[in-house]
């Protein structure tokens, strides 16, 4: 286990080396939130609510969604896995006593830990300046349920990204599948608009998919739109287990197909 902890620590160090990148990344997210702030403020105009959201609730929703995307959406591992398989640097994992999925998991846990530290402080600053426009909940228990729910969402994202990365064994280039997945999931998880504002048929389809448990459900638990009952935590656990076994199966099949470019 110590070797994986080392990978975790190295990922944090990597984040510190590229701190300017982290800060510019943060700046770009704040800019998007800033434009949404103006858009929704103009959209509300004289209206009190849109759907069942007040302006303050809507802005808080987007702020929370940005926080989740920055800390728990681990998209970069798909590129990483894809490049390692395509360029042949994956070979090294075949001869080292390392479990590849654990290596990727601890790497991204380190990254997420670093991002959480940086972005939590940054979002506190936003709260100081924009606090009057937001409507954060007061109950501590909601924050605890939110963290648990985001944690489960992290693993759903992780296994999806991991499986898509492994598809390089068959496809060679996976940019297309990555972007297709990102676009689709951004709609279905609720990071573009809150899911309860979408048409009914899309909401019904989404009930059979795990995406809403990554963004919409955690925020809805936090802002009190839904009560944190057990099913909201058990269903994502079921999805995580399903994706875990699926990833093991795909990895096994993929290794058989791997041609070991560069050996």
């Amino acid at each position: 286990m110590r070797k994986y902890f080392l990978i975790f620590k190295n990922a944090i160090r990597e984040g510190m080396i590229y701190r300017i990148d982290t800060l510019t990344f943060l700046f770009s997210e704040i800019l998007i939130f800033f434009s949404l702030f103006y858009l929704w403020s103009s959209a509300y105009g004289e209206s009190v609510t849109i759907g069942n959201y007040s302006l303050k609730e809507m802005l808080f929703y987007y702020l929370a969604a940005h926080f989740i995307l920055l800390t728990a959406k681990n998209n970069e591992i798909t590129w990483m896995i894809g490049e390692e398989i395509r360029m042949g640097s994956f070979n090294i994992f075949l001869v080292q006593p390392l479990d590849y999925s654990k290596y990727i998991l601890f790497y991204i846990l380190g990254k997420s830990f670093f991002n959480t530290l940086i972005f939590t402080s940054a979002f506190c600053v936003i709260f100081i300046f924009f606090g009057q426009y937001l409507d954060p909940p007061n109950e501590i228990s909601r924050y605890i349920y939110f963290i648990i729910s985001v944690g489960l969402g992290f693993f759903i994202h992780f296994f999806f990204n991991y499986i898509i990365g492994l598809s390089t064994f068959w496809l060679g280039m996976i940019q297309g599948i990555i972007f297709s997945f990102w676009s689709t999931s951004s709609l279905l998880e609720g990071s573009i608009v809150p899911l309860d504002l979408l048409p009914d048929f899309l909401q019904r389809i989404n009930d059979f998919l795990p995406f809403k448990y990554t963004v919409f459900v955690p925020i809805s638990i936090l802002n009190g739109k839904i009560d944190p009952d057990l099913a909201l935590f058990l269903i994502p656990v079921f999805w995580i287990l399903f994706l875990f076994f699926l990833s093991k199966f795909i990895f096994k099949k993929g290794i058989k197909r791997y041609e070991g470019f560069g050996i």
Partner: protein
Amino acid sequence: MKASAFRKFWHYFKVFFVIKKLGFTGRASYRLNFLLLIFAVSFQMILSVIFVRTVFSFVKEIAGWSYFESLLVLASYMIVEGAVWMLFGQMGAIKDLIRRGGLDSLLIKPVDAQLLVSAWRGDLEDVSRVFSGLAVLIYAISNLNLPLEFILFNSVFYFLFILNAVAIAYSFALFLQTMSFWLIKGHSLTMIQDSILSVSKFPTDIFFNKIVRFVFTFAVPIAFISTVPAKIFSEGFNFIFLLESFAVAGLFFWLSRKFWLFALRKYQSVGG
């Protein structure tokens, strides 16, 4: 003198075209990946329309813009963004060339280095952004009940506005990506670029704070990327806007060129 300038321009155009052709061929060589990219890019555009549709299903107008007028803004953004991705790959080649040491070999070629880095990357799949934008534009115009002669007359000027918008977006991309000379990784520069450009999805009139609106009109002129071109169909032709559009595009192109040349003088090379 004029003939020689024309010959030089033609030569540069041919170089740009040949590099593009090679790049596009390479891009399309993984067919399934390429088709999925087209799907992803088109779907991303559809998502923007879904977002605008969702917002307008609850309100009639935003900052004086109706649903179909807002679609004009969104369509202009799609066309400009798509053109800059397709033709110049958002200038993302600069950071890759610097990091991998590939810039050195471009600098010794007998062609302007800015032209080479501009042409180096171009994502053919982004042609679907341009087509999606055109489809949204036609859909919006057809629902605004405008007279045919009004549409035909203003389409010519709309095209000029879009050309200037592409020049502004290109210059902005060049300016930001040139900062890669001082950054180690530089991947986040593309994110900043995308975020700033994505602000132009919405009419700049939403920025009710006058200072913010001024910044997004002249300091970071996103207003000229989509809001101003869209106004030609929502409000009619405005000669002052056209002059401003040319002036801002020219100024930004000149500034980004100066910054690029300044960065080149400071460049220390990686492994060349």
